[in-house]
C-alpha cells in the first residue's frame, strides 16, 4: 500500500521504515555485546531509535518524536490529548478505541503510530470540530444509547463508519456490523434503536 503513495504528505516511505528497523537491529546488537548471559539477552531489550513521525489527525499534521513501537492509541491519547478514544482491552477485542483511518473504522490499539503515516486519521473529536453538531452523536443522545459513557465514543465512531458504508442497513446487518464493540453497562438496546432509525431515515 505504501508503494502506491510514495510521496505521502509526511514524506514517509517504506525505505525510511526499513532504515528505522536496521537502526533497531544495530542498537540491539550493541546492547547484546555488553552482556554475555543468555538471560540478559532476553531481559535487556533495547528499543529502536526515536524517529520523526508525522501523523495526520483530524485534518491537522502532527510531527512527533516517537519510537517505532509506539502504539497509535497511546499517541492519540497521551501525546495529542485526544482522549475520546479509550483504552479498555489492550487486545483488539472491544472497540472502545475505534477511530477512522482513511474512512475505515479501526481499533487504534491495533496500529503502531509509525504505520499510520500518510493516512488520514479521524478521532471522535473530529465530529464536533469547529462547533459542528454530529447526527450520530445526537442519535445516541436521543435514544439514551449510553450509561457510563466509556464505550460510547468508540460505538459512535463504529456506527458512523458502518452507516456511511451501509446507509440502508437492516437490523441484522447492524447487529453484525456493530459487533466489534463491547459495552458493559448494557446500552445495546439504545444503540440498535439509534442505528436502525438512522438507517431507515437515511440520516447517516
Amino acid at each position, binding site marked *: 500500500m505504501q508503494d502506491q503513495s510514495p510521496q505521502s504528505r509526511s514524506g514517509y516511505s517504506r525505505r525510511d521504515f526499513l532504515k528505522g528497523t536496521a537502526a533497531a537491529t544495530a542498537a540491539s546488537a550493541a546492547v547484546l555485546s555488553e552482556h554475555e548471559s543468555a538471560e540478559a539477552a532476553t531481559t535487556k531489550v533495547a528499543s529502536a531509535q526515536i524517529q520523526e513521525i508525522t501523523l495526520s489527525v483530524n485534518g491537522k499534521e502532527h510531527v512527533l518524536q516517537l*519510537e517505532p513501537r509506539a502504539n497509535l492509541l497511546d499517541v492519540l491519547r*497521551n501525546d495529542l490529548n485526544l*482522549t475520546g478514544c479509550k483504552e479498555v482491552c*489492550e487486545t483488539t477485542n472491544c472497540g472502545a478505541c475505534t477511530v477512522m483511518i482513511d474512512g475505515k473504522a479501526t481499533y487504534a490499539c491495533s496500529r503502531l503510530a509509525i504505520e499510520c503515516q500518510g493516512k488520514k486519521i479521524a478521532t471522535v473529536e473530529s465530529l464536533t470540530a469547529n462547533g459542528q453538531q454530529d447526527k450520530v452523536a445526537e442519535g445516541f443522545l436521543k435514544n439514551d*444509547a449510553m450509561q457510563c459513557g466509556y464505550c460510547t465514543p468508540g460505538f459512535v465512531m463504529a456506527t458512523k463508519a458502518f452507516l456511511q458504508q451501509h446507509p440502508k442497513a437492516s437490523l441484522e446487518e447492524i447487529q453484525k456490523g456493530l459487533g466489534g464493540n463491547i459495552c*458493559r*453497562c448494557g446500552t445495546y*438496546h439504545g444503540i440498535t434503536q439509534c442505528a436502525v432509525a438512522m438507517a431507515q431515515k437515511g440520516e447517516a
Partner: protein
Amino acid sequence: MVDLKVGWNKPEENSLIGTAMLRIDGYEKATGAAKYASDANTAGTLYAKVLTCPHGLAKLASIKVQDAEKVPGVEAVHLFANVGDELKWEGALVAAVAATRPEYADDGLRALQAMFEPLEHFVDEADLDGAVKANRTKDNGEKTKGDLAAAFAAAKVVHEGEYGVSTITHMCLEPHGSHCEWTKDGNLVANLSTQNVSGTAGQFAGPLEIEASKVSIICNYIGGGFGSKFAADEWGVAAARMAKQTGKPVRLMLDRATEMKIGGNRPSAFAKIKVGADADGKIIAWESHHWGTDGLTGNTVPIKDLPYVFQPENVQHKATGIITNCGPKRAWRAPNHPQLCALTDTAMDDIARKLGKNSYDVFLANLSQTPRQDVYRAEMEIAARMIDWKAKWHPHGKGGANNGVVRGVGMALHTWPGVAVAASCKVKVNPDGSVESFAGSQDIGTGTRTVIATVLAETFGVEIADVRVHIGNNSYPYSNPSGGSTTVGSVSGANRRAGIAALGQLFDKVAEKYKIDGSKLSAKKKTIWLGDKAVCSWKEATALLGIKPLEVQGESPADDGLTSSGVGGVQMADVSVDTETGKIRVNQLVAVQDCGLVICLETAKSQVYGALIMGIAYALSEERIMDNTTGRFINADLQNYKLPRIGDIGELMVEMYRPESETSRGVIGLGEPPVISTGAAISNAVCNALGVRVSQLPMIPKRVLDALEGARA
C-alpha cells in the same frame, strides 16, 4: 415567612418528572468531550504500569529495583511487596513503574526481573469435597426453623437438585486507577475513577500522612463501577507517592488483566437443595447447603437470605465458605441477590417441572410467602401479557423440536431496598434566574446530573437548560457513595428539599414586592403564579434577590415521604436452545419493575435494559475460569471472558410499573433490582425448553450438552 410543604406533586401535575428527559451530559459522553479520570493528562504526566504475581501463591524471591530505575524514561519504582513477602493470589501487586512513556514503563517492568518461589495454592471453588479434604473450608453458619421432617413427609412432591453460579468480575471498561498530581503548596489533586467522590480523600490522606483537607478528589465521569470502586486502593496511594517522589503527575490505571484479577468479583455460589411442596407447588419445606468463595476470607453468599424472597415455614440451611487463593470479592450490583435468586427460583421452577404444572401458577402459589405479593402478582400479569406466556408455555421439555432447536419460557422475581441515605447538596438560585446544584456525588451511568436538573427544574418551574449541575468534586457538599441503588433517592430528596426551601424564600420576596400572600404562590412555566394569575416572570422574581444569590443546603434522608424503600420486580424470558450445539439464544426478555416515583423515565428504563444485558451475560457466557494447576485466572482478557455483543441480546421489553400506589411512595433506587432475576428467568426458560436443568450459570454450550447427556444416561 412562607413555609412550603415538602412533597412531590401528583404525577399528572408534573411537566418534567416522570417524563423521558434526555440525558443532559449525553452529548458530551457521545462525542468524547466527557473527561474521565483516565483521561487526565496534565503536562509532564508519567505513565505507570504494575507488575503482579503470576502464581496462585508465591514468595517474592528477588527483584532488581535499581536495574529498573536505570532504564531510560523510568522515573520512579514503587514496591508493593518486599523480598520474602507472600503474594496470596495471582494478580497481587508487586511493583509499579512510572515512566515518561508507557513503552518505557514496560521496559522498567521487564528490568525488574522479579523472581518468585511458588507455593502450594488452592483455587477450586466448585468442589466442596475437595475443599474439605484440603482443609480449605470455613463454616458460614447453619439455621433451622419449623419442623422439616414433618413438612417433607407431608409434601406432595419433593425435589432434590444441584445448582451453581460461577464467579464473575465487574469488568468496568474504565479500569480502576487515578491521575495524581501535587500542587506547589503540598495539596494532592487525585482524578480518581470512583463511585465515592466524597468518601475517598481520607483514604489517600491516611497512608500519605497528610490532612484530608489537602486532598482534592475529582471524578467528573466514571467508566463503570458496579460496586467495585469505593476505595482509593493501594494502587491509588502508590500513584500519589510516585507523583510526590518525582514532582510530576502520575497516571496509574490498572491493565485489563490486573483489573480482572484484583479489581473485584462477585463470589460464586453452589448448592445442594431439597424442596418439598404441596399439590399447588407451594413450598412447605426447604433444605439447602451452599458453598462458594470470595477469596481468602472464605465466605459465600450469606445464609440468611436463602431461600430468596420466599419465606416457607420449614427451613434448614447451611453454608460453607471455601478459602481460595483468588482475588478478593467486591460488592457487585445487588450484592448476593443474583446468586440467591438463581439458586432459589430455579429450584422453584423444578418443582413446577416435577408436578407438570405451569411455572407461572407455581410462582403464583408461592406469592403469599413473599413480603409484597400484590406487587408481584400485578407485575406477573403484565409481564405474562408482554411475553405472551399463555401461548408460549408448554410442560417442561414438551414443546417439540424444530431442526434440533427447542424453545421455552421461564420467569423469576426479585427484591431490593433502594433506600435513600445520608447526603447533602447546595442549591443556588442566581439573581439572573439561573439555578445551580452542588453535590459531591457522581454519575456511574445512572444519569445523576439529569436527575438533579429534572428535580430542580420541576421545583422552580424552569427549563432543564436553566439548571447547571456540579458533581464529581469532594469540595462540594458531602454526598453518598453510589452503591446499593441509593443515589437517585438521596440526591433527588436533598435537592427537592433545598429547592422547596429556596422557593419559599423567593416567594417571600415576591409577596413583599407585590403585596400578596406568599403562601398561595406557585412557580411554573418560568412564571410565578397566584392561583391562575401570573404575578411576575421567574427572572423578575429572582432579580428581587439583588446581588446576593440564594443558597440553601439540602439534606437526605428525611421522614417526609419524598423517598422510601423496597421494590419487587418480575422478569420473563423466551429462549431457543440448539440441542446439537448447546447454543442458547434469548428471543425475548421482559422486565416489569417498580421503583416508586420515577424521576427520569428514559434513564430509568436504560438502567433496566442494561441490567437485562448484564443478566444475559452472567446467564449465558461470562465467568472467571481458574486453573487448578497453576492457580491462574486463565481467561483474564476480553477475548476469552465472554460478554454479549450487540447481536446477542434478543428483543428486550421494559415496563416501569407505576400505578398511584407506587408513585405515592416517593423515589426508590433502581440500579440493582433489575439485574437480579435475569439469570434465573433465563435458566428456567432453558429448562422449560429442554426438560432438563442446566445446573450452573453461565449456561455455556458445554454445560447444556452435559445436561442433555446426563438426562439421557
